[in-house]
């Protein structure tokens, strides 16, 4: 199982000091956070994509390429890449390039974004959100698997004898997750392709995501990619920790109360009760995260949101120390217990490349 962090790349004033970091500071802080994630032994760093203030992350592969050059081991991913408004040809090129530079340590998560106005900024129509996600991904999927593509769709100019370069590393496309907060169509899409499904899982009660994940698992099996238990599931989570639970609550409360997404609404206590947010000791985080398995089954990737709501960099780095040193080692051990052998590990380039090579050898063997 893989553990990591995901960031939205928001520039938010620190409610305790009133200070707002500059875009430059925030971008450098995100790099520092990614490097720290590798240092403390996490498996994945994922970044969002936004094209409007207060977000800074409009160019994810630039950011991830810069991080790739300074890391050795961590998988670089997205949360999410906009499959609706990015040209699938450019996604195919950018992420294949990144995959080569990062020695395969790359996967990505498709999403539709949450900002209506972004569609017209890139010449698209939000009313076509789902059809765009379906058609664009159908093209992206082919561009990474077929050397020469002829294409005609509704949303972009046709392609004739087009080759997307560079070709994916070792002939293996980056692994793809599909992220969705509410659309069963996207769970169905992930199941159809045998791709991963990621439930953001942070803002809403688990009953909601249970329905989506169960649907994905059922349809994954329906399409013959494996059993429902073998479907590739990722989950979000959101934590704030101090060794002493009361200290965590006291320190995080002003950030919670003023958070852009849920601030000025329910109390911290109500929200932690109703959603996966955990504010407390590392032990409490361990317990709540382990309970995810009871709701969603054995899964492959757990990403935590750690650096939002204006938390200063120093605090975030302290959080990552706690996560890497005290939480994740226990989670690795506990999640491994009772995990059926047929449940796959989190996807890596090495594993996919090995499978690809084995399949190629088998195909060659049977034709000889």
């Amino acid at each position, binding site marked *: 199982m893989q553990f990591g962090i995901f960031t939205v790349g928001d520039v938010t004033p620190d409610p305790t000091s009133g200070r707002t970091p500059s875009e430059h500071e925030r971008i450098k802080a995100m790099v520092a956070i990614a490097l720290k994630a590798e240092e403390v032994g996490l498996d994945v760093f994922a970044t969002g994509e936004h094209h409007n203030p207060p977000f800074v992350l409009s160019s994810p592969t630039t950011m991830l390429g810069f991080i790739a050059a300074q890391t050795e081991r961590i998988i670089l991913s997205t949360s999410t890449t906009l499959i609706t408004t990015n040209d699938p040809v450019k996604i195919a090129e950018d992420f294949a390039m990144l995959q080569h530079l990062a020695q395969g340590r790359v996967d990505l998560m498709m999403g539709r974004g949450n900002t209506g106005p972004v569609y017209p900024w890139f010449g698209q129509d939000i009313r076509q959100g*789902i*059809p765009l996600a*379906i*058609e664009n991904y*159908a*093209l992206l999927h082919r561009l990474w698997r077929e050397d020469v593509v002829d294409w005609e*769709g*509704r949303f972009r100019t046709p392609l004739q004898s087009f080759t997307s370069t560079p070709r994916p590393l070792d002939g293996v496309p980056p692994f793809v997750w599909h992220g969705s907060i509410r659309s*069963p*169509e996207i769970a*169905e*899409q992930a*199941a*159809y392709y045998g791709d991963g499904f990621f439930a953001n899982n942070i*803002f*809403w*009660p688990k009953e*909601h995501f249970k*329905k989506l994940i169960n*649907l994905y698992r059922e*349809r994954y099996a329906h399409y013959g990619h494996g059993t429902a238990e073998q479907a590739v599931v990722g989950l979000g989570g959101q934590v704030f920790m101090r060794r002493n639970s009361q200290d965590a609550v006291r320190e995080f409360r002003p950030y919670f109360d003023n958070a852009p*997404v*849920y*601030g*000025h*609404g*329910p109390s911290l206590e*109500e*929200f932690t009760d*109703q959603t996966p947010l955990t504010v407390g000791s590392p032990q409490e985080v361990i317990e709540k995260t382990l309970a995810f398995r009871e709701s969603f089954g054995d899964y492959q990737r757990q990403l935590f949101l750690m650096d939002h709501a204006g938390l200063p960099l120093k605090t975030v780095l302290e959080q990552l120390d706690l996560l890497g040193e005290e939480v994740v080692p226990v989670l690795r051990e506990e999640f491994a217990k009772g995990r059926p052998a047929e449940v796959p590990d989190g996807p890596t380039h090495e594993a996919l490349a090995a499978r690809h090579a084995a399949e190629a050898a088998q195909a060659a063997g049977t034709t000889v």
Partner: protein
Amino acid sequence: MNTLNLVVVSAGLGKPSSTRLLADRLAASTARQSGADRVEVQVIELRDLATGIAHNFVTGFPGAELRAAVGTVARADGVIAVTPIFSASYSGLFKSFFDVIDNDTLTGKPVLIAATGGTGRHSLALEHAVRPLFSYLRAVVVPTAVYAATDDWGSGGDAHTDELPARIDRAAGELAALMDRRPAVPKQAEAVVPFAEQLAALRV
């Protein structure tokens, strides 16, 4: 004979409230006209859900209590919706509850609309504000909407005037008739369009 679920949504704020009183009268008359023991009445007091409704606006999801109330409305065979008239329209709390409900929850459901107010001069708010709201939600709204001004309750503080009880019975009779003719509420199933169909629709 099947039991019918009649759900009363009352946006009254006082305790006791004349809005709730009107709602109870309408529910009792509907039950009486549907036949003895056939109707199960559940009452949702929006006052008790006010904070939860506000939180739903901020967080985007309903808390446990509000979720239960929304589920109750979704399973209803008929709904009685009663609001006080504030500033020439339904109260903000009343509207907010129907804002956080999915907009297909009430599709095809028989709904009786009613309102209370200090003066009879606001009675048409039912027709120009409340009825269009439920038309938008594709509910089947009964022809008689019941408005009760302070005067209507009579000096004894009870429904002793001639007119209000007659209107209550007429509206409740219309609701009972619609609920009687309506097929049982189907279990909601998660509809998935198979992916091949989604692709075919795009001709990809």
